[in-house]
């Protein structure tokens, strides 16, 4: 069972988190063309190895996180807040 180091709450069991989706997806503008939306919604890299993914600390601070994880070994390399400004502020205070 993996543990994820939430920037706010510290190292917590995986059971407190929910997996979101692959984190490298960039969603197009709401009025973008159908193809770019199709790519963002349906095309997945399904990486064998290291990938960024989103998780939510559902049973904790409810932050959405960007987790860099190896899908083979489950090793976690980094955890950041998905909200870019919040992540910056956290860096300043620590």
């Amino acid at each position, binding site marked *: 069972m993996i543990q994820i180091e939430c920037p706010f709450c510290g190292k917590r069991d995986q059971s407190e988190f929910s997996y979101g989706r692959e984190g490298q997806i960039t969603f197009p503008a*709401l009025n973008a063309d*159908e193809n770019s*939306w199709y790519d*963002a*919604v349906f095309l997945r890299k399904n990486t064998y190895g290291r990938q960024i993914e989103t998780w*939510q600390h559902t049973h904790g601070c409810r*932050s*959405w996180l960007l987790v860099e994880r190896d899908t083979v070994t489950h090793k976690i390399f980094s955890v950041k807040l998905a909200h870019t400004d919040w992540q910056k502020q956290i860096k300043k205070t620590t």
Partner: protein
Amino acid sequence: MNPLRKKNQFRADNVEENVIFFFWNNKKYFANKGDSIAAGLLANNQHVIGRSFKYHRPRGIMSAGVEEAGALVTIGNGAYTEANVRATTTELTQGLSVYSQNAWPSVKFDIGSILNVLGRFFAAGFYYKMFMGIPPFEWGRGTKIWMFFEHFIRKAAGLGQSSRLPDPDCYEHMHTHTDVLVIGTGPAGLQAAISAAKEGKDVLIVEQDYAIGGSYLSQPDTVELETQIEVLKQLQVTILTRTTAFGLYDDKTVGLVQVMPAKEYKTSSKKPRQQFNICRAEKIILATGAIERSYAFINNDLPGIMSVSSARTYLNRYNLLLSKNIVISTNNDSAYETAIELENAGATITILDAREQIGNKLLQQIAGLRINLYLGSGVVKAEKGLNTSSIGKIKLVEFANNKWRYAGNLYCDCLLISAGWSPVIHLASHQGYPINWNEENACFLSSGDNKSIFLIGSARGIWTKAGCIQSAKEIFQYNSRKKHKPSTVIGGWETPLAPIYEICLHNIKGKAFVDPQHDVTSSDIRLAYQEGFISVEHMKRYTTLGMATDQGKMGNIIGLALMAEALNCSISEVGVTRFRPPYTSISLGALAGRNRQSHFKPIRRTPFNNFSIQNRGVMINAGLWHRPWYYPMESESLEAAYIREATVTRRSLGICDVSSLGKIIIQGPDSTEFINRVYTNPFAKLPVGKARYGIMLRDDGLVFDDGTTWRLSENCYLMTTTTDNASSVMARLEELLQVRWPDLSVQVTSVTDQWGGCALAGPNSRNLLTKIIDDPSEISNESLPFMGIKQVLMQNVPCYVARISFSGELGYEIYIPSDYAQSMMEFIWENGQKFECCLYGLEALGTMRIEKGHLTNAEIDGRVTIQDIGLSKMASSNKDYIGKVLKNREKLTDSDRPQLVGIFPKDKNKTFKAGALLNEAGYSNGHPLGWVTSVTFSPALGHWIALGFITGGLAYVKDKNIVLSDELRSNFLDVEIVSPQMYDPEGLRLHG
């Protein structure tokens, strides 16, 4: 064989207080304290313990440990029954009831053993071939032969039966964190724990047995063991016995299950029977030992045939000499130590060593003892003795000119086998650490990662005690963060072993077992090869090798070796299947812990819960929520109650608990923009004090959720969601704000639990509201128009009132702070008595919404578009919102997609159920035209009605005869497809 209890100066004597009684198949026997069930049975000369899985062959005790494949028993009675317990690892306690398994009518005479005679048909792939009608079962093809046999086969195959009664015990979960976890208490494990503790580490050491010591327990004296335990205690190391490390998981997590001693959990019901312990450690040391292997020869499953090391355990740990006359068949040095000890205890020994020569040291050790040594020999067949189901005679072979040849018979009632050792690398395999075949020692080895997961002792393939202890010391002799490079030598025998996996001669026939627990024979493996199932994964599934409760601890390697031989390749090329947790079976109760029955998932009660119960509300589970279903008067049925409730509401007034709807406060300067992007319909111009019904799509353009959103002030909204989607909408909004649109300055907060929601519906709802609101002028038709919202005072408590309606009647929802909910509801209900008034539950709520064609999750099931549910007008073309682009995909805009409709039976007396299919009359094959989602009796219309979806919608089926068919209930009727707004389609009643 007739085992003898010996006296042992190091062990408790056979004095009176050490004698306990137990029951074996309801007959009383005596044993010694500390005996395993197997030891107790052997001491009482009980050798046939059960019948085998498929062929019902008599089976006895084959080992003294967790690898046991023969002696599976059922213990306990009634609700305490535990099936498939290994007799070899379970402690006998005073008065314990033990039963044999898989035998009818008795272990001695078993009807199922007729299967043994029909064995040809029961070879690997039997079920599959018979079912498919493949040779030799081609005659059964197309017949119902399988159905005929299935009943019989299902009864015959299988192991013990567990109790059908609820488990009376309780189980607990706990979490442990430690610096070092040592698994196994043999010489290596104890030394590792001592070394770690001396370094100042926090150490936990676990042992699956009920006694500490591992292989120390099988040695003649316990002096060294006692010294080591004393050191451990002084170092304050935590020792857990009866604790199995059943799995190694990510992030250095080990699953432990500790089983409490029988008498302890029975004296106090509050004490857990088992404890499931999730242990996280910085270092995990696997001192899990090795398991002695057998080899395949004919009838190698006869009672009286055991592993060599188990005879040593029975002798030294349980003071039981198995027989006065013992034959040992071995291919390695390890058997000699046992042979000498057995001889010292009074037995005459014959050693058949497969090797053609052995070392001088061994020869010197056995010189002068009653040990006859035959080199280059083995066993090709075992035979039953006269008047017994156990072994009585063996056929010998000798090695000559590079092959085995028959060399005569030998009488013996106890045959011990050692064909090498398999290190217990299961836990390392769970985490996928590399496993390599070691040719010289004929075993698979793993070394963990040598950083935080280590294997030591015989688990690493070290066969000498000194080597095992050295391998443990080594781990703590370095202080760097570098990888540990073990220096202790693998192996350690004077003469290397001579690998044997099977001995067979073409002219001697019979069954040679590879996996005795699942009755997999060596010819099954060859059959798998012949039929092309040559990959290990295929072979495993085709033959079921290693899939029984012992997970092939003894048999797997023999199977691999036989496949390698058939393929003419090496075992390392055949490979090995990855081991999966659990190492030994663990009870489901332990995994569930306290999370059972009502503790399985939390119950959410609305703030009106007590009020509903006081008013005879019958509750129903809706997701996690406990919601009022209906409020029966006297002995009213559900049907009578909901019809009355809906009727009274439409005629006068009804009050309903709607607290479970999700409520989310959305605040911040960008909240209008945010809501506008989330909903399909425009929210930008929603005035303060008004609510609007909105539809939310997913990214892929399908409908996600619906609900009303109220503008409380310029930058503050209250969004309501469906009960089912409350948490997923919340998580979705958070994702959008944090991941996708961090530039929007918006805060969302769930306030579902902070507010009790109460719906007032019916023509008298405003009249009631007038009586309960402190300033009635605030809720007049003018000051609170349809879809208006307002903060009002009720009994001086600030509440929200919204003029919205799910029932289609003039209606309001009052949101009351949860702490006031109970008293306010009593106040509202008291005032309601001035009118004809009722409480209505979920059933009547459903009835009224179906009559109006309003939607719930029965319709919005994740597969429908906004057009499908008839709300395409709500999809704005003047703004951008989530799902807008992909909702226009080609197949989602087809005009022949199923669309929401209402359904009436043509014969108004007919009833039907949700899930029924809709078709054009005369067409009953292929895909149906549509289906029924929600059904109710409509009090307003006086007959049964439904909502459903039908291809092309109302327009397409206008002139067609539609038939509703419910094949499962044999209900077929003609229906009329109508508009989903079945009652008051103009919405006149809404405005009172």
